């Protein structure tokens, strides 16, 4: 693929994100929000930042945040690209259930674990491809196209597991969910590697730019010579692939595939992570690392609520209140207000 020489975006759009110095990284609203949530957690529970070495791995609340946030972070990596094309993928939670169900059912039937893992990833790719075909060839709106699989997918997963929680004792699957590498939990390692690879792929090639072009104006991008449909297919397939990885992690974590509950409502957390990460639902400019950071903010909140000792009736209220604050801070209005503050000018 060659980098197009013409900027396809309508005039008036902010310039493309460029590698920024470290200082501006720390003034981003997402980073400030994450730091604030972590500090509140620390205030509620003084041992929050304590990390110890136990059984050959790091152990502590902060590690829990990373570990528990990893499945949503991985979903968010795929979701960012989909949303950047002005689409959305509601089916990722159901695809997680399908992937976990596939792997668990295969290993319990004596299929070697590596084959089962590949098969699970394969079903994720197929699911993503299905979404992509609905969106491109049939030109169905993404929210409707992926809603089909969101509803039907969980049923498919239940068909695969026959409605039961399929438990397994396969070391490879369990390693994916609960193992550790260099002291870090496996899900965190997988999420990090995927984030770095995906970011390099979209930023060191023209792919990111092309995705943004399709997101800003699909017709214009096509008229400019972009294979918009092929790009969309790739993006939805990648989202399915990411969901399959998350599904494997979640199944490995509990040593069982729970078709009813695996990944339930996680598509919404993934979309939220992407939005907190600053990617607009209207498509265009996107940032994968920021979406991953968004997933960590959500999980830091969840973990904070768990260790705070609030009664569970407050969980959702606290969560939504924090999210509203973050989104308001990110809004154009507050950006303008900040600029007017004395001393805020550069």
């Amino acid at each position, binding site marked *: 693929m060659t980098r197009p020489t013409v900027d396809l975006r309508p005039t008036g759009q902010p310039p493309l994100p460029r590698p920024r110095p470290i200082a501006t990284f720390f003034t981003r609203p997402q980073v400030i929000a994450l730091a604030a949530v972590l500090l509140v957690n620390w205030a509620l529970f003084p041992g929050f930042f304590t990390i110890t070495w136990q059984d050959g791995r790091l152990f502590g609340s902060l590690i829990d945040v990373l570990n528990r946030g990893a499945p949503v972070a991985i979903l968010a990596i795929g979701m960012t690209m989909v949303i950047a094309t002005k689409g959305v993928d509601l089916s990722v939670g159901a695809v997680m259930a399908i992937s976990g169900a596939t792997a668990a059912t295969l290993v319990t039937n004596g299929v070697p674990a590596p084959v089962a893992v590949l098969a699970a990833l394969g079903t994720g790719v197929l699911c993503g491809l299905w979404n992509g075909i609905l969106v491109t060839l049939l030109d169905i709106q993404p929210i409707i196209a992926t809603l089909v699989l969101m509803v039907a997918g969980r049923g498919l997963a239940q068909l695969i597991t*026959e409605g039961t*929680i399929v438990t397994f004792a396969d070391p490879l699957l369990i390693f994916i969910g609960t193992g550790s590498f260099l002291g870090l939990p496996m899900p965190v390692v997988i999420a990090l590697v995927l984030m770095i690879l995906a970011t390099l792929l979209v930023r060191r090639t023209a792919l990111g730019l092309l995705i943004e072009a399709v997101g800003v104006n699909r017709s214009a991008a096509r008229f400019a010579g972009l294979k918009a449909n092929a790009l969309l297919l790739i993006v939805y397939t990648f989202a399915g692939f990411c969901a399959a990885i998350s599904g494997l992690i*979640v199944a490995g*974590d*509990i040593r069982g595939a729970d078709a*009813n509950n695996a990944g339930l409502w996680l598509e919404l957390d993934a979309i939220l992570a992407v939005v907190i990460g600053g990617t607009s639902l209207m498509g265009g400019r996107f940032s994968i690392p920021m979406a991953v950071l968004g997933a960590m903010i959500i999980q830091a909140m969840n973990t904070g609520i768990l260790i705070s*000792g609030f009664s*569970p009736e407050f969980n959702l209220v606290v969560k939504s209140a924090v999210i509203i604050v973050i989104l308001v801070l990110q809004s154009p209005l507050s950006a303008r207000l900040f600029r007017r503050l004395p001393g805020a000018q550069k």
Partner: protein
Amino acid sequence: MKLIKTLALGAGLAGLLMSAAYAEGLQGKVIGFSQIGSESGWRAAETSVTKAEAEARGIDLKFADAQQKQENQIKAIRGFIAQGVDAILVAPVVATGWEEVLTEAKEANIPVVLLDRGIEGPEDLYLTSVASDQVKEGRVAGEWLVGAVGDKQCNVVELQGTVGSSPAINRKQGFEEALAGKANLAIIRSQTGDFTRSKGKEVMEGFLKAEGGGANICAVYAHNDDMAVGAIQAIKDAGLKPGTDILVVSIDAVPDIFAAMVAGEANATVELTPNMAGPAFDALQAYWDAGTEPAKFIITESKLYTPADDPQGEYDRRKGLGY
């Protein structure tokens, strides 16, 4: 002497007749069963136990899966009425909106038995309802813990079901009733694990971190076995022994908790029996044979299982039920 003989003979004959009546009681009866769907493993087990119970009694069971939709259940019940079944079992998916279709069944003189869940509306619309007492389940779990710890100081953490769901509210209430007045037992943390394994594990991880790596926790009470299974994994990850360092008590009695008991990692579970149909069939038989009007609410037993109750055998017995 002769009198006694005659009496004995009569009693024997009557007994024979009665047992014959029992064997024939429901033989050949056609009973419709409108099941909610396959929302959980327990539901699947209820379906397979109902089918087995019907088969053992020679009942022709018409099974209808409503796929979690009330409209499907209403359609199924109307279908049963049109077929002229002898009785209808319903596991109602929601509590409201049953007056019309149950009135139709009543007008057709078909007795209706509710399974597992109740409905709002006049009680004369159904013959009886068979359900568990969720408060009692919590109480049985709590009483076990009270007995198990004796006078020892014990901090309990609680994994609640989905916030606002009736099993979560009632199982919490029952457990608290059992612990009331016991100064050595305190529930120090309580959070929802949404009845799932992964949330149970995540919440337990948080509890362990917040309570000195688990040193302050003596027992975990989970509103269902799935959350307990998740909690057991979290306890192991924290380097502690579930079942020994931290006692594990939960509710439902699904096969996997018996597997955990075999491994010494779970201490007690209270059964939510999937056999709601057995008592329902018994009630129908008594109603038809002797005209006995059954009690409006039949409460199933909330049986406690501990590692002393042959967990391996229980696991094997339950594994095939579709949990």
